């Protein structure tokens, strides 16, 4: 009995679901990293301003 098309469909859909989830996690992680960089820049700017005032 050759049901290889069903087997192929099951495995490819499974991996697609897992990869979509990993990709979503990765994208959200990237967005978080850019937020950290933004915070870093703001803090550095404020430190520089403080230094100038003092």
């Amino acid at each position, binding site marked *: 009995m050759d*049901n290889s098309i*069903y087997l192929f*469909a*099951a495995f490819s859909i*499974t991996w697609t*679901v*897992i990869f979509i*989830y990993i990709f979503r996690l990765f994208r959200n992680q990237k967005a978080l990293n850019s*937020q950290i960089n933004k915070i870093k820049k703001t*803090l550095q700017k404020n430190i520089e301003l403080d230094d100038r005032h003092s």
Partner: protein
Amino acid sequence: MKRMQTLLIPFQLLTYVLMLLALYTIFIYAPVEKTMGLIQKIFYIHVPSAFLAYMAFFITFIASIFYLYRKDSKWDTVAHCAVETGVIFCTIVLITGPIWAKPIWNVWWTWDPRLTTTLILWFTYVAYLMLRRAVKENQRANLSAVFGIIGFINVPITFFSIRLWRTIHPVVITSRGLNMSGPMKFTLIITFIAFCFLFFSLLLSRIRFERLKTRIEEINEIMDDMNLRK
């Protein structure tokens, strides 16, 4: 947080190696089943995914109890992340099941007790995720914890449905153990271990992300209070 990050990288590498090993055992090592043929190989992803979905919802159940008892937000994070990962695995079960059923039962879907209870289980936890988005932040953790505890009632019902009611779904784990040949049993064990690693890899990454997000929100709030953000 840093210790978790250092542990996560080798854990993820091991998951990758185990996944490759699992694919080798499924397609090269495991024999082709005589009656069903190649399609039976779906079994090696269908069964571990179902078990891991149950485990995820069990983690949610325990974490929800801990949250209500200790009121510590870290348990709410664990419960939420476990539901998300569990829903992914439950989705895999609901996709691979009908694909396997079509050539064997000649239908994509039948309102069999196991299939119906699994679908209800999936809807229950999708509702959990929707509830979290719908309610206000101050009520979110409490309501989710109650939902996480009550929703777990579905898990034993789904698991025992093939024993409680008349069903066409096969029973794999009997009182005599796994009902299959040696190489098939070995393949299932390897796939099961690989999927467990994948599950914990995804769950830990998700928890780590959620904790990091909470910390950044806290920092942003402090910066707002100090008028540092422009």
